[in-house]
Protein backbone atom coordinates (compact mmCIF):
# COMPACT_ATOMS: atom_id res chain seq x y z
CA UNK A 1 0.00 0.00 0.00
CA UNK A 2 1.14 3.50 -0.70
CA UNK A 3 1.29 6.13 1.92
CA UNK A 4 1.35 9.09 -0.41
CA UNK A 5 -0.97 8.58 -3.33
CA UNK A 6 0.74 9.15 -6.60
CA UNK A 7 -0.84 10.92 -9.53
CA UNK A 8 -0.18 8.00 -11.80
CA UNK A 9 -2.86 6.19 -13.71
CA UNK A 10 -3.34 4.27 -16.89
CA UNK A 11 -4.96 5.73 -19.98
CA UNK A 12 -6.46 3.56 -22.75
CA UNK A 13 -7.60 5.24 -25.92
CA UNK A 14 -9.89 4.06 -28.69
CA UNK A 15 -11.65 6.01 -31.43
CA UNK A 16 -14.79 6.43 -29.40
CA UNK A 17 -13.65 6.61 -25.82
CA UNK A 18 -10.73 7.19 -23.47
CA UNK A 19 -10.45 5.30 -20.20
CA UNK A 20 -8.54 6.57 -17.19
CA UNK A 21 -7.69 4.35 -14.26
CA UNK A 22 -6.12 5.02 -10.88
CA UNK A 23 -6.42 2.80 -7.81
CA UNK A 24 -10.06 1.76 -7.54
CA UNK A 25 -11.26 4.54 -9.82
CA UNK A 26 -12.14 4.09 -13.49
CA UNK A 27 -13.24 7.07 -15.60
CA UNK A 28 -14.42 6.73 -19.14
CA UNK A 29 -14.73 9.81 -21.33
CA UNK A 30 -17.16 9.52 -24.24
CA UNK A 31 -17.62 12.88 -25.95
CA UNK A 32 -19.49 15.01 -23.38
CA UNK A 33 -20.01 12.20 -20.85
CA UNK A 34 -17.63 11.15 -18.09
CA UNK A 35 -18.58 7.78 -16.66
CA UNK A 36 -17.14 7.51 -13.15
CA UNK A 37 -17.04 4.01 -11.71
CA UNK A 38 -15.39 2.08 -8.88
CA UNK A 39 -14.40 4.09 -5.85
CA UNK A 40 -13.44 7.73 -5.50
CA UNK A 41 -11.70 8.13 -2.14
CA UNK A 42 -9.03 10.34 -0.67
CA UNK A 43 -6.42 8.20 -2.42
CA UNK A 44 -7.87 8.68 -5.92
CA UNK A 45 -8.90 12.31 -5.37
CA UNK A 46 -5.52 13.81 -6.26
CA UNK A 47 -5.55 11.94 -9.60
CA UNK A 48 -9.16 12.87 -10.27
CA UNK A 49 -8.74 16.56 -9.46
CA UNK A 50 -5.48 16.84 -11.40
CA UNK A 51 -5.47 14.48 -14.42
CA UNK A 52 -9.20 14.17 -15.06
CA UNK A 53 -9.79 17.86 -14.37
CA UNK A 54 -7.12 18.98 -16.82
CA UNK A 55 -8.24 16.41 -19.43
CA UNK A 56 -11.83 17.58 -19.32
CA UNK A 57 -10.72 21.19 -19.47
CA UNK A 58 -8.81 20.53 -22.68
CA UNK A 59 -11.44 18.18 -24.16
CA UNK A 60 -13.11 21.05 -25.99
CA UNK A 61 -16.66 20.20 -24.90
CA UNK A 62 -18.89 23.09 -23.82
CA UNK A 63 -20.87 20.81 -21.47
CA UNK A 64 -19.75 17.78 -19.52
CA UNK A 65 -21.94 15.39 -17.57
CA UNK A 66 -20.51 13.18 -14.83
CA UNK A 67 -22.35 9.89 -14.79
CA UNK A 68 -22.14 8.42 -11.30
CA UNK A 69 -24.35 5.36 -11.79
CA UNK A 70 -21.41 2.96 -11.68
CA UNK A 71 -19.72 4.66 -8.74
CA UNK A 72 -19.68 2.17 -5.85
CA UNK A 73 -18.08 4.22 -3.11
CA UNK A 74 -17.17 7.83 -2.45
CA UNK A 75 -15.79 9.56 0.63
CA UNK A 76 -15.73 13.22 1.63
CA UNK A 77 -12.48 13.95 -0.22
CA UNK A 78 -13.97 12.28 -3.32
CA UNK A 79 -17.05 14.50 -3.13
CA UNK A 80 -14.91 17.57 -2.70
CA UNK A 81 -12.76 16.58 -5.69
CA UNK A 82 -15.90 16.18 -7.85
CA UNK A 83 -16.98 19.70 -6.95
CA UNK A 84 -13.39 20.89 -7.31
CA UNK A 85 -13.24 19.66 -10.92
CA UNK A 86 -16.68 21.11 -11.59
CA UNK A 87 -15.47 24.54 -10.38
CA UNK A 88 -12.28 24.17 -12.38
CA UNK A 89 -14.30 23.54 -15.54
CA UNK A 90 -16.61 26.44 -14.75
CA UNK A 91 -13.58 28.76 -14.62
CA UNK A 92 -12.79 27.62 -18.18
CA UNK A 93 -16.36 28.33 -19.32
CA UNK A 94 -17.37 24.66 -19.35
CA UNK A 95 -20.58 23.75 -17.64
CA UNK A 96 -20.55 20.46 -15.72
CA UNK A 97 -23.28 18.51 -14.05
CA UNK A 98 -23.71 15.27 -12.11
CA UNK A 99 -26.12 12.53 -13.14
CA UNK A 100 -27.24 9.31 -11.51
CA UNK A 101 -25.57 7.75 -8.50
CA UNK A 102 -26.90 5.34 -5.90
CA UNK A 103 -28.64 6.40 -2.73
CA UNK A 104 -25.47 6.35 -0.64
CA UNK A 105 -23.55 8.39 -3.24
CA UNK A 106 -26.31 11.00 -3.46
CA UNK A 107 -26.50 11.24 0.32
CA UNK A 108 -22.78 11.91 0.55
CA UNK A 109 -22.93 14.44 -2.29
CA UNK A 110 -25.50 16.26 -0.21
CA UNK A 111 -23.72 15.92 3.17
CA UNK A 112 -20.36 17.06 1.85
CA UNK A 113 -21.68 19.65 -0.59
CA UNK A 114 -19.46 22.76 -0.68
CA UNK A 115 -22.67 24.81 -0.49
CA UNK A 116 -22.74 23.84 3.15
CA UNK A 117 -19.19 24.99 3.66
CA UNK A 118 -19.10 28.22 5.55
CA UNK A 119 -16.63 30.66 4.04
CA UNK A 120 -14.66 32.20 6.86
CA UNK A 121 -13.41 35.70 6.34
CA UNK A 122 -9.62 35.94 6.50
CA UNK A 123 -8.29 37.90 9.45
CA UNK A 124 -7.97 41.58 8.62
CA UNK A 125 -4.35 42.40 7.82
CA UNK A 126 -3.08 45.50 9.58
CA UNK A 127 -0.92 48.02 7.80
CA UNK A 128 2.78 48.41 8.49
CA UNK A 129 2.58 51.70 10.40
CA UNK A 130 -0.56 50.62 12.21
CA UNK A 131 1.30 47.53 13.37
CA UNK A 132 4.28 49.59 14.56
CA UNK A 133 1.96 51.93 16.43
CA UNK A 134 0.09 49.03 18.02
CA UNK A 135 3.33 47.31 19.01
CA UNK A 136 4.78 50.46 20.59
CA UNK A 137 1.57 51.08 22.51
CA UNK A 138 1.48 47.44 23.57
CA UNK A 139 5.10 47.63 24.71
CA UNK A 140 4.34 50.47 27.09
CA UNK A 141 0.90 49.41 28.30
CA UNK A 142 1.50 45.69 28.43
CA UNK A 143 5.19 45.26 29.10
CA UNK A 144 6.50 48.38 30.86
CA UNK A 145 3.36 49.02 32.89
CA UNK A 146 2.82 45.29 33.51
CA UNK A 147 6.39 44.86 34.73
CA UNK A 148 6.16 47.87 37.04
CA UNK A 149 2.84 46.60 38.39
CA UNK A 150 4.28 43.16 39.08
CA UNK A 151 7.38 44.70 40.70
CA UNK A 152 5.16 46.83 42.95
CA UNK A 153 3.09 43.80 43.91
CA UNK A 154 6.11 41.63 44.62
CA UNK A 155 7.88 44.24 46.71
CA UNK A 156 4.71 45.08 48.59
CA UNK A 157 4.11 41.43 49.53
CA UNK A 158 7.82 40.80 50.17
CA UNK A 159 7.99 43.61 52.70
CA UNK A 160 4.56 42.95 54.13
CA UNK A 161 5.20 39.21 54.64
CA UNK A 162 8.43 39.96 56.51
CA UNK A 163 6.25 40.96 59.41
CA UNK A 164 3.83 38.07 59.02
CA UNK A 165 5.89 34.92 59.37
CA UNK A 166 2.75 32.78 59.59
CA UNK A 167 1.85 33.66 56.02
CA UNK A 168 5.02 32.03 54.72
CA UNK A 169 5.07 28.34 53.84
CA UNK A 170 7.37 26.46 56.14
CA UNK A 171 10.60 25.33 54.49
CA UNK A 172 9.88 27.11 51.19
CA UNK A 173 12.53 29.80 51.73
CA UNK A 174 15.18 27.17 52.47
CA UNK A 175 14.14 25.05 49.47
CA UNK A 176 14.30 28.00 47.13
CA UNK A 177 17.61 29.16 48.60
CA UNK A 178 19.10 25.75 47.95
CA UNK A 179 17.69 25.65 44.45
CA UNK A 180 18.64 29.19 43.43
CA UNK A 181 21.80 29.70 45.48
CA UNK A 182 23.50 26.61 46.83
CA UNK A 183 23.07 24.53 43.69
CA UNK A 184 24.62 27.30 41.60
CA UNK A 185 27.77 27.59 43.73
CA UNK A 186 30.06 25.26 41.81
CA UNK A 187 29.42 26.68 38.36
CA UNK A 188 29.69 30.28 39.64
CA UNK A 189 33.00 29.60 41.41
CA UNK A 190 34.48 27.69 38.49
CA UNK A 191 33.60 30.24 35.82
CA UNK A 192 34.68 33.20 37.97
CA UNK A 193 38.03 31.53 38.60
CA UNK A 194 38.52 30.98 34.86
CA UNK A 195 37.53 34.55 34.00
CA UNK A 196 39.88 36.00 36.66
CA UNK A 197 42.67 33.84 35.30
CA UNK A 198 42.03 34.84 31.66
CA UNK A 199 41.78 38.54 32.53
CA UNK A 200 45.18 38.45 34.26
CA UNK A 201 46.66 36.41 31.43
CA UNK A 202 45.41 38.81 28.72
CA UNK A 203 46.66 41.90 30.52
CA UNK A 204 50.02 40.44 31.60
CA UNK A 205 51.82 40.89 28.28
CA UNK A 206 50.78 44.56 28.03
CA UNK A 207 51.71 45.32 31.64
CA UNK A 208 55.06 43.55 31.25
CA UNK A 209 55.89 45.78 28.26
CA UNK A 210 55.53 48.88 30.43
CA UNK A 211 57.11 47.29 33.47
CA UNK A 212 53.88 47.71 35.36
CA UNK A 213 53.51 44.07 36.41
CA UNK A 214 52.22 44.86 39.88
CA UNK A 215 49.19 46.74 38.51
CA UNK A 216 47.70 43.46 37.40
CA UNK A 217 46.59 43.18 41.04
CA UNK A 218 44.72 46.51 40.87
CA UNK A 219 43.13 45.49 37.61
CA UNK A 220 41.95 42.10 38.82
CA UNK A 221 40.74 43.21 42.25
CA UNK A 222 38.77 46.23 41.03
CA UNK A 223 37.42 44.63 37.88
CA UNK A 224 36.40 41.39 39.55
CA UNK A 225 34.87 42.76 42.75
CA UNK A 226 32.99 45.69 41.32
CA UNK A 227 32.19 44.43 37.86
CA UNK A 228 32.88 40.89 36.72
CA UNK A 229 31.96 38.98 39.88
CA UNK A 230 28.40 40.32 40.22
CA UNK A 231 27.85 40.30 36.45
CA UNK A 232 28.99 36.72 35.87
CA UNK A 233 26.96 35.55 38.87
CA UNK A 234 23.85 37.35 37.63
CA UNK A 235 24.16 35.97 34.10
CA UNK A 236 24.56 32.42 35.41
CA UNK A 237 21.68 32.73 37.87
CA UNK A 238 19.49 34.29 35.18
CA UNK A 239 20.22 31.39 32.83
CA UNK A 240 19.87 28.76 35.48
CA UNK A 241 17.24 29.94 37.95
CA UNK A 242 15.51 32.69 35.96
CA UNK A 243 14.51 30.17 33.32
CA UNK A 244 13.36 27.72 35.98
CA UNK A 245 11.19 30.40 37.60
CA UNK A 246 9.58 31.32 34.27
CA UNK A 247 9.00 27.66 33.33
CA UNK A 248 7.57 26.78 36.72
CA UNK A 249 5.11 29.66 36.83
CA UNK A 250 4.17 29.22 33.16
CA UNK A 251 3.47 25.52 33.68
CA UNK A 252 1.41 26.33 36.75
CA UNK A 253 -0.63 28.76 34.69
CA UNK A 254 -1.09 26.37 31.79
CA UNK A 255 -2.20 23.57 34.08
CA UNK A 256 -4.60 25.97 35.84
CA UNK A 257 -2.73 25.59 39.13
CA UNK A 258 -2.61 29.37 39.47
CA UNK A 259 -6.38 29.50 39.01
CA UNK A 260 -6.69 26.84 41.69
CA UNK A 261 -4.57 28.96 44.03
CA UNK A 262 -6.79 31.96 43.37
CA UNK A 263 -9.95 29.97 44.01
CA UNK A 264 -8.45 28.85 47.31
CA UNK A 265 -8.04 32.48 48.22
CA UNK A 266 -4.27 32.46 47.80
CA UNK A 267 -2.44 35.23 46.00
CA UNK A 268 -0.18 33.56 43.40
CA UNK A 269 2.40 36.35 43.69
CA UNK A 270 2.58 35.94 47.41
CA UNK A 271 2.48 32.19 47.28
CA UNK A 272 4.83 31.54 44.38
CA UNK A 273 6.97 34.62 43.67
CA UNK A 274 7.74 36.07 47.10
CA UNK A 275 9.62 32.99 48.43
CA UNK A 276 11.75 33.03 45.28
CA UNK A 277 12.44 36.72 45.75
CA UNK A 278 13.53 36.22 49.37
CA UNK A 279 15.76 33.32 48.38
CA UNK A 280 17.38 35.12 45.48
CA UNK A 281 17.96 38.33 47.46
CA UNK A 282 19.48 36.30 50.29
CA UNK A 283 21.73 33.98 48.29
CA UNK A 284 22.98 36.32 45.57
CA UNK A 285 25.39 38.30 47.85
CA UNK A 286 26.99 35.03 48.98
CA UNK A 287 27.32 33.84 45.42
CA UNK A 288 28.87 37.18 44.45
CA UNK A 289 31.36 36.97 47.35
CA UNK A 290 32.35 33.46 46.24
CA UNK A 291 32.62 34.66 42.64
CA UNK A 292 34.84 37.57 43.73
CA UNK A 293 37.12 35.30 45.76
CA UNK A 294 37.38 32.76 42.95
CA UNK A 295 38.05 35.47 40.34
CA UNK A 296 40.80 37.03 42.43
CA UNK A 297 42.34 33.59 43.06
CA UNK A 298 42.29 32.90 39.33
CA UNK A 299 44.01 36.24 38.71
CA UNK A 300 46.58 35.50 41.42
CA UNK A 301 47.45 32.17 39.79
CA UNK A 302 47.91 33.77 36.35
CA UNK A 303 49.95 36.63 37.88
CA UNK A 304 52.19 34.09 39.56
CA UNK A 305 52.73 32.06 36.39
CA UNK A 306 53.13 34.84 33.79
CA UNK A 307 54.36 37.84 35.80
CA UNK A 308 56.21 36.10 38.64
CA UNK A 309 54.13 37.90 41.26
CA UNK A 310 54.12 35.72 44.35
CA UNK A 311 50.84 35.16 46.23
CA UNK A 312 52.25 37.11 49.19
CA UNK A 313 52.93 40.20 47.06
CA UNK A 314 49.60 39.77 45.26
CA UNK A 315 47.47 39.62 48.38
CA UNK A 316 49.37 42.41 50.16
CA UNK A 317 48.73 44.67 47.20
CA UNK A 318 45.13 43.40 46.94
CA UNK A 319 44.47 44.45 50.54
CA UNK A 320 45.72 47.95 49.72
CA UNK A 321 43.61 48.23 46.56
CA UNK A 322 40.42 46.75 47.94
CA UNK A 323 38.06 49.36 49.36
CA UNK A 324 34.71 49.26 51.07
CA UNK A 325 33.28 50.92 48.00
CA UNK A 326 34.12 47.84 45.92
CA UNK A 327 32.34 45.60 48.40
CA UNK A 328 29.35 47.93 48.63
CA UNK A 329 29.13 48.03 44.82
CA UNK A 330 29.17 44.24 44.76
CA UNK A 331 26.42 44.02 47.35
CA UNK A 332 24.14 46.61 45.77
CA UNK A 333 24.56 45.03 42.35
CA UNK A 334 23.75 41.57 43.71
CA UNK A 335 20.46 42.86 45.15
CA UNK A 336 19.46 44.70 41.97
CA UNK A 337 20.32 41.73 39.76
CA UNK A 338 18.47 39.30 42.03
CA UNK A 339 15.34 41.43 41.79
CA UNK A 340 15.64 41.69 38.01
CA UNK A 341 16.03 37.92 37.60
CA UNK A 342 13.06 36.97 39.79
CA UNK A 343 10.80 39.68 38.41
CA UNK A 344 11.60 38.91 34.78
CA UNK A 345 11.13 35.16 35.25
CA UNK A 346 7.81 35.71 37.04
CA UNK A 347 6.62 38.35 34.58
CA UNK A 348 7.07 36.09 31.57
CA UNK A 349 5.81 33.05 33.47
CA UNK A 350 2.51 34.83 34.16
CA UNK A 351 2.24 35.94 30.54
CA UNK A 352 2.27 32.43 29.07
CA UNK A 353 -0.32 31.54 26.42
CA UNK A 354 -0.80 28.48 24.19
CA UNK A 355 0.13 25.58 26.41
CA UNK A 356 3.37 23.63 26.17
CA UNK A 357 4.72 25.65 23.27
CA UNK A 358 4.11 28.86 25.20
CA UNK A 359 6.07 27.59 28.22
CA UNK A 360 9.16 27.06 26.08
CA UNK A 361 8.74 30.44 24.46
CA UNK A 362 8.40 32.48 27.68
CA UNK A 363 11.28 30.59 29.25
CA UNK A 364 13.61 31.54 26.42
CA UNK A 365 12.41 35.14 26.30
CA UNK A 366 12.70 35.53 30.07
CA UNK A 367 16.37 34.50 30.02
CA UNK A 368 17.21 36.83 27.13
CA UNK A 369 15.37 39.75 28.71
CA UNK A 370 16.80 39.08 32.18
CA UNK A 371 20.37 39.06 30.87
CA UNK A 372 19.72 42.21 28.81
CA UNK A 373 18.24 44.02 31.82
CA UNK A 374 21.12 42.88 34.03
CA UNK A 375 23.66 44.33 31.57
CA UNK A 376 21.67 47.56 31.25
CA UNK A 377 21.46 47.82 35.04
CA UNK A 378 25.20 47.14 35.23
CA UNK A 379 25.86 50.12 32.98
CA UNK A 380 23.68 52.38 35.10
CA UNK A 381 25.16 51.15 38.38
CA UNK A 382 28.64 51.47 36.87
CA UNK A 383 27.95 55.19 36.31
CA UNK A 384 26.47 55.52 39.78
CA UNK A 385 29.44 53.97 41.56
CA UNK A 386 32.08 55.39 39.24
Amino acid at each position, binding site marked *: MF*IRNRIVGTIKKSKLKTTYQNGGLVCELREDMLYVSGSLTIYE*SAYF*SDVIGKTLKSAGQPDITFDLDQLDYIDSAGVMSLYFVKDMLAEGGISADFRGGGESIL*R*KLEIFSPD*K*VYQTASPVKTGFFEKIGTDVLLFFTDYVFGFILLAANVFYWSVSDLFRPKSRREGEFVNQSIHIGVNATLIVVFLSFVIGYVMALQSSSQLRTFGANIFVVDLIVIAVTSQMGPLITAILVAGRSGSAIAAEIATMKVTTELDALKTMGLNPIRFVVVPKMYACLFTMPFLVILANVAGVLGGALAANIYLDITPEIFFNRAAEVMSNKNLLTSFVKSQVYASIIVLTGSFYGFRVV*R*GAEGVGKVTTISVVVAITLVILADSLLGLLFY
Partner: protein
Amino acid sequence: MAQEKVIDVKNLFASFDDEVVLSDVSFSALKGEVTVILGGSGSGKTTVLKHLLGLYPVKSGYVSVLNKDVTHLREVEQVELYLQMGVFFQNGALLNSLTVAENVALPLEQHTNLPKKLIREIVRMKLGLVNLEHAYYLYPSQLSGGMLKRAALARAIAMDPPLLFCDEPGAGLDPVSLQSLDSLILDLKNQLGMSVVMVTHEVLSILRVADRIVFLDKGVVAFEGTVKEALESDTQVVVDFFSVLKDHPR
Protein backbone atom coordinates in the same frame (compact mmCIF):
# COMPACT_ATOMS: atom_id res chain seq x y z
CA MET B 1 -23.64 -13.91 7.53
CA ALA B 2 -21.53 -12.88 10.51
CA GLN B 3 -20.65 -9.19 10.73
CA GLU B 4 -17.04 -8.32 9.96
CA LYS B 5 -14.81 -7.62 12.96
CA VAL B 6 -12.80 -4.42 12.99
CA ILE B 7 -11.18 -5.19 16.32
CA ASP B 8 -10.39 -8.63 17.62
CA VAL B 9 -8.61 -9.06 20.94
CA LYS B 10 -7.81 -12.52 22.27
CA ASN B 11 -6.19 -13.40 25.58
CA LEU B 12 -4.46 -10.03 25.92
CA PHE B 13 -2.17 -9.83 28.93
CA ALA B 14 -0.32 -6.74 30.11
CA SER B 15 1.73 -5.87 33.15
CA PHE B 16 3.87 -2.96 34.31
CA ASP B 17 6.63 -3.54 36.86
CA ASP B 18 5.19 -6.87 37.98
CA GLU B 19 1.74 -5.33 38.37
CA VAL B 20 -0.76 -7.16 36.19
CA VAL B 21 -3.04 -4.63 34.46
CA LEU B 22 -4.77 -6.89 31.95
CA SER B 23 -5.20 -10.61 32.36
CA ASP B 24 -6.78 -12.62 29.60
CA VAL B 25 -8.81 -9.87 27.94
CA SER B 26 -10.81 -10.99 24.90
CA PHE B 27 -13.46 -9.05 22.99
CA SER B 28 -14.30 -7.83 19.53
CA ALA B 29 -15.79 -4.77 17.84
CA LEU B 30 -17.91 -5.08 14.72
CA LYS B 31 -17.88 -3.07 11.53
CA GLY B 32 -20.29 -0.12 11.41
CA GLU B 33 -20.98 -0.25 15.14
CA VAL B 34 -20.10 1.89 18.14
CA THR B 35 -18.34 -0.26 20.73
CA VAL B 36 -17.93 1.30 24.13
CA ILE B 37 -15.19 0.13 26.48
CA LEU B 38 -16.28 0.74 30.05
CA GLY B 39 -14.81 0.20 33.44
CA GLY B 40 -13.81 1.87 36.67
CA SER B 41 -10.52 3.64 37.30
CA GLY B 42 -7.62 1.21 37.05
CA SER B 43 -9.71 -1.39 35.22
CA GLY B 44 -7.35 -1.31 32.24
CA LYS B 45 -9.40 0.68 29.69
CA THR B 46 -6.58 2.99 28.71
CA THR B 47 -4.14 0.10 28.55
CA VAL B 48 -6.46 -1.76 26.17
CA LEU B 49 -6.86 1.35 24.04
CA LYS B 50 -3.12 1.92 23.89
CA HIS B 51 -2.62 -1.68 22.78
CA LEU B 52 -5.20 -1.18 20.02
CA LEU B 53 -3.47 2.02 18.95
CA GLY B 54 -0.09 0.31 18.84
CA LEU B 55 1.27 2.59 21.55
CA TYR B 56 1.98 -0.38 23.82
CA PRO B 57 3.53 -3.51 22.31
CA VAL B 58 1.48 -6.69 22.64
CA LYS B 59 3.58 -8.94 24.87
CA SER B 60 1.12 -11.76 25.20
CA GLY B 61 -2.12 -12.47 23.35
CA TYR B 62 -3.51 -11.46 19.98
CA VAL B 63 -4.76 -8.07 18.83
CA SER B 64 -6.14 -7.48 15.38
CA VAL B 65 -7.21 -4.07 14.08
CA LEU B 66 -8.95 -3.85 10.71
CA ASN B 67 -7.96 -7.45 10.05
CA LYS B 68 -4.29 -6.75 10.68
CA ASP B 69 -2.46 -8.58 13.43
CA VAL B 70 -0.81 -5.69 15.28
CA THR B 71 1.31 -8.04 17.37
CA HIS B 72 4.15 -8.14 14.89
CA LEU B 73 3.64 -5.10 12.71
CA ARG B 74 6.65 -3.43 11.17
CA GLU B 75 6.86 0.33 11.58
CA VAL B 76 5.77 1.02 8.00
CA GLU B 77 2.81 -1.33 8.39
CA GLN B 78 1.83 0.40 11.61
CA VAL B 79 1.90 3.74 9.79
CA GLU B 80 -0.32 2.30 7.05
CA LEU B 81 -2.72 1.11 9.73
CA TYR B 82 -2.70 4.54 11.38
CA LEU B 83 -3.91 6.01 8.08
CA GLN B 84 -6.98 3.80 8.36
CA MET B 85 -7.86 5.00 11.82
CA GLY B 86 -8.66 8.29 13.45
CA VAL B 87 -7.88 8.93 17.10
CA PHE B 88 -9.76 11.42 19.21
CA PHE B 89 -7.71 12.02 22.34
CA GLN B 90 -9.25 12.92 25.65
CA ASN B 91 -7.67 16.37 25.87
CA GLY B 92 -7.90 17.01 22.15
CA ALA B 93 -4.11 16.88 21.74
CA LEU B 94 -4.24 19.55 19.06
CA LEU B 95 -0.89 21.10 18.22
CA ASN B 96 -0.91 24.42 19.98
CA SER B 97 1.42 26.11 17.54
CA LEU B 98 -0.98 25.51 14.63
CA THR B 99 -4.39 26.99 13.92
CA VAL B 100 -7.44 24.74 14.03
CA ALA B 101 -7.48 24.59 10.22
CA GLU B 102 -3.78 23.74 10.07
CA ASN B 103 -4.34 20.98 12.63
CA VAL B 104 -7.09 19.42 10.52
CA ALA B 105 -5.13 19.88 7.31
CA LEU B 106 -1.99 18.28 8.72
CA PRO B 107 -2.79 14.61 7.91
CA LEU B 108 -4.14 15.59 4.49
CA GLU B 109 -0.98 17.53 3.68
CA GLN B 110 1.29 14.82 5.00
CA HIS B 111 -0.37 11.77 3.52
CA THR B 112 -1.94 12.88 0.25
CA ASN B 113 -1.04 14.85 -2.85
CA LEU B 114 -4.29 16.77 -2.87
CA PRO B 115 -4.05 20.35 -4.20
CA LYS B 116 -3.78 22.93 -1.42
CA LYS B 117 -7.02 24.59 -2.51
CA LEU B 118 -8.87 21.29 -2.28
CA ILE B 119 -7.35 20.60 1.14
CA ARG B 120 -8.60 23.98 2.33
CA GLU B 121 -12.09 23.13 1.10
CA ILE B 122 -11.99 19.71 2.77
CA VAL B 123 -10.86 21.34 6.03
CA ARG B 124 -13.72 23.84 5.85
CA MET B 125 -16.13 21.00 5.20
CA LYS B 126 -14.80 18.94 8.13
CA LEU B 127 -15.00 21.95 10.42
CA GLY B 128 -18.51 22.53 9.13
CA LEU B 129 -19.43 18.97 10.07
CA VAL B 130 -18.47 19.68 13.66
CA ASN B 131 -20.01 23.18 13.60
CA LEU B 132 -16.68 24.87 13.95
CA GLU B 133 -16.42 26.84 10.69
CA HIS B 134 -15.81 30.07 12.58
CA ALA B 135 -12.75 28.60 14.29
CA TYR B 136 -10.84 28.18 11.04
CA TYR B 137 -8.16 30.74 11.90
CA LEU B 138 -8.23 30.30 15.67
CA TYR B 139 -5.56 28.61 17.75
CA PRO B 140 -6.44 25.75 20.13
CA SER B 141 -5.72 28.00 23.11
CA GLN B 142 -8.53 30.28 21.92
CA LEU B 143 -11.13 27.51 21.98
CA SER B 144 -13.43 26.44 24.77
CA GLY B 145 -13.38 22.85 26.05
CA GLY B 146 -16.28 21.76 23.85
CA MET B 147 -14.86 23.48 20.77
CA LEU B 148 -11.50 21.87 21.41
CA LYS B 149 -13.14 18.45 21.45
CA ARG B 150 -15.00 19.14 18.20
CA ALA B 151 -11.81 20.41 16.56
CA ALA B 152 -10.05 17.24 17.68
CA LEU B 153 -12.88 15.19 16.16
CA ALA B 154 -12.54 17.10 12.88
CA ARG B 155 -8.84 16.24 12.80
CA ALA B 156 -9.53 12.61 13.68
CA ILE B 157 -11.90 12.24 10.70
CA ALA B 158 -9.79 14.31 8.30
CA MET B 159 -8.71 11.23 6.36
CA ASP B 160 -12.18 9.61 6.39
CA PRO B 161 -10.90 6.69 8.44
CA PRO B 162 -13.06 3.57 8.53
CA LEU B 163 -12.25 3.19 12.23
CA LEU B 164 -12.44 5.93 14.85
CA PHE B 165 -11.08 5.66 18.40
CA CYS B 166 -12.42 8.06 21.00
CA ASP B 167 -10.79 8.33 24.42
CA GLU B 168 -13.32 9.80 26.84
CA PRO B 169 -14.79 12.24 24.32
CA GLY B 170 -17.35 13.55 26.77
CA ALA B 171 -15.00 14.24 29.67
CA GLY B 172 -15.49 17.76 30.94
CA LEU B 173 -18.36 18.62 28.61
CA ASP B 174 -21.71 20.05 29.61
CA PRO B 175 -24.75 17.85 28.79
CA VAL B 176 -25.76 19.92 25.76
CA SER B 177 -22.28 19.83 24.22
CA LEU B 178 -22.06 16.14 25.06
CA GLN B 179 -25.34 15.44 23.30
CA SER B 180 -24.19 17.34 20.24
CA LEU B 181 -20.90 15.40 20.23
CA ASP B 182 -22.82 12.14 20.51
CA SER B 183 -24.98 13.16 17.54
CA LEU B 184 -21.84 13.82 15.54
CA ILE B 185 -20.45 10.41 16.37
CA LEU B 186 -23.75 8.79 15.44
CA ASP B 187 -23.76 10.70 12.15
CA LEU B 188 -20.26 9.45 11.40
CA LYS B 189 -21.46 5.92 12.05
CA ASN B 190 -24.75 6.15 10.17
CA GLN B 191 -23.83 8.39 7.26
CA LEU B 192 -20.27 7.28 6.63
CA GLY B 193 -20.41 3.75 7.95
CA MET B 194 -17.54 4.48 10.32
CA SER B 195 -16.82 1.99 13.07
CA VAL B 196 -16.21 3.61 16.43
CA VAL B 197 -14.42 2.32 19.51
CA MET B 198 -15.01 4.59 22.45
CA VAL B 199 -13.83 4.73 26.03
CA THR B 200 -16.30 6.67 28.14
CA HIS B 201 -17.97 6.84 31.53
CA GLU B 202 -20.96 8.92 30.53
CA VAL B 203 -24.01 6.71 31.05
CA LEU B 204 -26.35 8.86 28.93
CA SER B 205 -23.79 9.03 26.19
CA ILE B 206 -23.46 5.24 26.23
CA LEU B 207 -27.21 4.81 25.94
CA ARG B 208 -27.32 7.26 23.04
CA VAL B 209 -24.49 5.95 20.90
CA ALA B 210 -23.40 2.47 21.93
CA ASP B 211 -24.25 -0.68 20.01
CA ARG B 212 -22.04 -2.94 22.08
CA ILE B 213 -20.46 -2.65 25.49
CA VAL B 214 -17.26 -4.20 26.75
CA PHE B 215 -17.07 -3.85 30.51
CA LEU B 216 -13.61 -4.22 32.05
CA ASP B 217 -13.12 -4.93 35.69
CA LYS B 218 -9.79 -5.57 37.38
CA GLY B 219 -8.07 -6.36 34.11
CA VAL B 220 -10.65 -8.82 32.75
CA VAL B 221 -13.77 -8.49 30.62
CA ALA B 222 -16.64 -8.69 33.08
CA PHE B 223 -19.31 -8.27 30.43
CA GLU B 224 -19.59 -8.08 26.65
CA GLY B 225 -22.81 -7.59 24.75
CA THR B 226 -25.38 -5.13 23.46
CA VAL B 227 -26.71 -2.20 25.47
CA LYS B 228 -29.99 -4.03 25.97
CA GLU B 229 -28.16 -7.07 27.30
CA ALA B 230 -26.09 -4.83 29.59
CA LEU B 231 -29.19 -3.23 31.07
CA GLU B 232 -30.64 -6.68 31.75
CA SER B 233 -27.35 -8.19 32.92
CA ASP B 234 -26.99 -9.51 36.46
CA THR B 235 -23.20 -9.04 36.50
CA GLN B 236 -22.67 -7.01 39.66
CA VAL B 237 -20.28 -4.36 38.29
CA VAL B 238 -22.60 -3.73 35.35
CA VAL B 239 -25.63 -3.54 37.60
CA ASP B 240 -23.78 -1.07 39.85
CA PHE B 241 -22.73 1.05 36.88
CA PHE B 242 -26.22 1.37 35.45
CA SER B 243 -27.88 1.69 38.86
CA VAL B 244 -27.68 5.47 38.43
CA LEU B 245 -30.54 5.13 35.94
CA LYS B 246 -32.69 3.43 38.54
CA ASP B 247 -31.73 5.94 41.21
CA HIS B 248 -32.55 8.85 38.93
CA PRO B 249 -35.14 7.60 36.41
CA ARG B 250 -35.82 10.00 33.60
